[in-house]
């Protein structure tokens, strides 16, 4: 009889929460839209980098040999080509890491297309080579003046940068090996686009480097060949060898924990709001004419648990699907998935019962804020300590926190999903300790719930809640 009523309450709770437009849009459609938008945004940023910066770059070349090379490197075409090469290099790294099949297109053609794309937004700089004897101080003045005049980009006579190359940048006075070369100084307008500064720096450094190679009689291509060491890190798995998955391995514990956190928080928050709603709309006593407060609380907690589980299953399903399509499914052990469910359950019971108690004690959502803040802090703790715990999953900090409800399940989840999972005994102990924690939370919440439901008026503080626990 009692179980029937609990299921009824749970069903209403689930239907009125998860089967609403708001929930479906918030939980599924918005993430889908975001996922769909991200590639578009990346494409847009690659394609249009805002209005191309125009301006004048002055060079005082005291070494006397690099000015023309710098100018050559600063043409829009060279800048665009370099940007395109950077993008392709990054893409290559990603596709290697996540085993996305590399495009078989001709690499050269690809560089060509991407360059053309980048060309539209590349800075259009007019390079002026000044006399090497000119005074740098005097030549900085136009930069300051341009900034003062607030001349919009687009005027090629606006000086945005001054490069002063030192005399010994290419030829050293004392040519003993190991002696340092001189370099260059770069003066730029304030608030100059960082990509422009980057392009100028690259142009100057490359030009000087080229000149040094030439003057030392070294072969650039040969040096590059000497410099580059080809390496491939392969993971040896039962399915064969493949590129290593460091990034995935690093993110996995965080992913597991965030998944748990989202599911627990969504269920818990809905529980809080529906409880407050039942109280403020005075439907509560009508319900209590049919069910006992304990049946009501049990039904509500169970119903919202199903809401949390829905999210957990859908999101983790998507995650696992993603790993399968990246041929990385073996990184998630079945044991971790089972433990995910167990830890979710424990964490949810603790958080949900505390939030149900808070919801039953207050009259409106606003009053709940101050009471629920400490509960939120407890949940945020493992999130804030993500880095130290995932770096060193068996440290003293991680060990202790595993046994502190309600942070324990989150911490243990990260440790289980990490590269160095804890021994089974610790996992079992964590489950036991947190199960006791969950029981204690439910027990205290039940007492507060029973008293709080019919209390209207002044919002209680923690002291009042303690009195209620002793009273009921």
């Amino acid at each position: 009889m009692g179980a029937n009523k609990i299921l009824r309450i749970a069903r209403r709770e689930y239907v009125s929460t998860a089967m609403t437009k708001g929930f479906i849009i918030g939980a599924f459609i918005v993430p889908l839209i975001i996922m769909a938008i991200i590639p578009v945004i990346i494409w847009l940023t690659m394609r249009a980098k805002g209005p191309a910066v125009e301006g004048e770059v002055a060079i005082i070349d005291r070494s006397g040999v690099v000015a023309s090379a710098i100018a050559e490197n600063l043409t829009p075409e060279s800048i665009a080509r370099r940007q395109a090469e950077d993008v392709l290099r990054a893409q290559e790294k990603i596709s290697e890491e996540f085993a996305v099949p590399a495009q078989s297109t001709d690499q050269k053609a690809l560089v060509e297309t991407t360059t053309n794309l980048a060309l539209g937004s590349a800075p259009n700089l007019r390079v002026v080579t000044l006399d090497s004897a000119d005074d740098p101080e005097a030549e900085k003045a136009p930069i300051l003046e341009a900034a003062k005049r607030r001349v919009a980009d687009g005027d090629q006579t606006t000086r945005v940068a001054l490069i002063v190359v030192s005399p010994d940048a290419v030829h050293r006075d004392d040519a003993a090996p190991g002696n340092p070369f001189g370099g260059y100084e770069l003066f730029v307008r304030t608030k100059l686009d960082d990509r422009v500064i980057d392009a100028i720096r690259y142009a100057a450094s490359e030009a000087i480097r080229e000149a040094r190679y030439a003057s030392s009689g070294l072969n650039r291509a040969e040096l590059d060949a000497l410099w580059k060491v080809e390496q491939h890190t392969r993971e040896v798995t039962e399915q064969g060898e493949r590129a290593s998955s460091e990034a995935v391995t690093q993110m996995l514990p965080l992913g597991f924990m965030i998944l748990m956190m989202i599911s627990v928080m969504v269920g818990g928050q809905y529980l809080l709001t529906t409880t407050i709603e039942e109280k403020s709309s005075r439907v509560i006593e009508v319900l209590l004419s049919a069910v006992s407060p304990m049946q009501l609380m049990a039904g509500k907690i169970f119903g919202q648990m199903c809401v949390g589980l829905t999210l957990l299953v859908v999101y983790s399903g998507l995650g696992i699907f993603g790993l399968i399509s990246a041929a990385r499914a073996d990184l998630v052990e079945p044991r971790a998935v089972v433990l995910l469910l167990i830890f979710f359950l424990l964490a949810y019971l603790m958080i949900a019962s505390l939030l149900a108690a808070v919801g039953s004690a207050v009259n409106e959502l606003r009053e709940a804020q101050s009471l629920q803040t400490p509960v939120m802090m407890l949940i945020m703790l493992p999130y804030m300590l993500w880095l130290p715990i995932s770096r060193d999953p068996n440290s003293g900090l991680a060990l202790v926190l595993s046994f502190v409800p309600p942070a324990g399940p989150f911490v243990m989840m990260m440790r289980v999903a990490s590269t160095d999972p804890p021994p089974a005994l610790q996992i079992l102990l964590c489950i036991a300790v947190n199960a006791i924690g969950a029981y204690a939370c439910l027990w205290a919440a039940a007492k507060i719930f029973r008293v709080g439901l019919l209390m209207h008026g002044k919002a209680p503080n923690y002291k009042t809640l303690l009195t209620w626990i002793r009273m009921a």
Partner: protein
Amino acid sequence: MGDAIVLENVRKTFGDKVAVEGMDLRVPQGSLYGFIGPNGAGKTTTIRMIMSIIFPDAGRLSVLGKASAVESKDRIGYLPEERGVYRKMKVGAFLRHMAALKGVSGPAAGGKVRDWLERVALGEVERKKCEELSKGMQQKVQFVASIIHEPELVILDEPFSGLDPVNRRLMRDLFLEQHKRGATVIFSTHQMHQAEELCDHIVMIHRGRKVLDDTLDAIRSQSDSRIVAVRLARGGVDPGPLSAIAGVRHTGGAGLELEVSLSPEADAPRVIAEVAQRVPVESIALRRPNLEDIFVEIATDAGDASVREALAGVGAGEIEGEA
């Protein structure tokens, strides 16, 4: 027939405030009981204890033969004073939910919900959201929710508050019908005349204690007090001197209406004559006391002068909620 409800020496306190004390009560099965008393007297607290929504600090309690109403909630219909609906839920869905919680589910429940909505003249709102209903309509929905499972015991806490005269009459007919069906019906009200009109048995609660527990007829016959009802010809008259007349227990009333209650041994015609001499009178009559008068009398005997103020104005208009 046994007793539907038994309370023995029940006591309940909230902090240092005593809400109910020394409450003994027997409600036989099939009877129609009215709980009356001013706001804050302890009616709702008593009802909540009967419903096992709150628990007594001391004393014994039995409902439908069980020690707690929790075990027999499906046999009890309860319309609380603090009542509401799920605002976003459709009326039909809300009633089916409530019916299911009380053990009425399946296809039969849907038919019952429709029938009942028709009967309270709300047939067309089944698919509307509860928040779209007026307060009076919501109250009828809540009443349907409380009796849809045909309970043996129906407890209605202030069932008439917030209703217009037409709906008040409808509500009255509906719960009298529950009584005819054989259910034990208890309702509370702070409006004495409603109890007087409906109940065969009255329980009067004042300051957490039961002060009266009898049939209406017995109460009336036991009460030997009579009242001289006076309508003054003009305002601004001091009724003070009237208390000095032999046989007058006390005077009361407000505005142009004065009430002079007589002691048992008073000579009524003589008092009427004397009253007419001392104050300008438009009309004057002797009448039997009503429940309100009896309550004032009892409370006054208990040395409580505040009762009259507590009751002043209660008879005329609606006062919502317990203080």
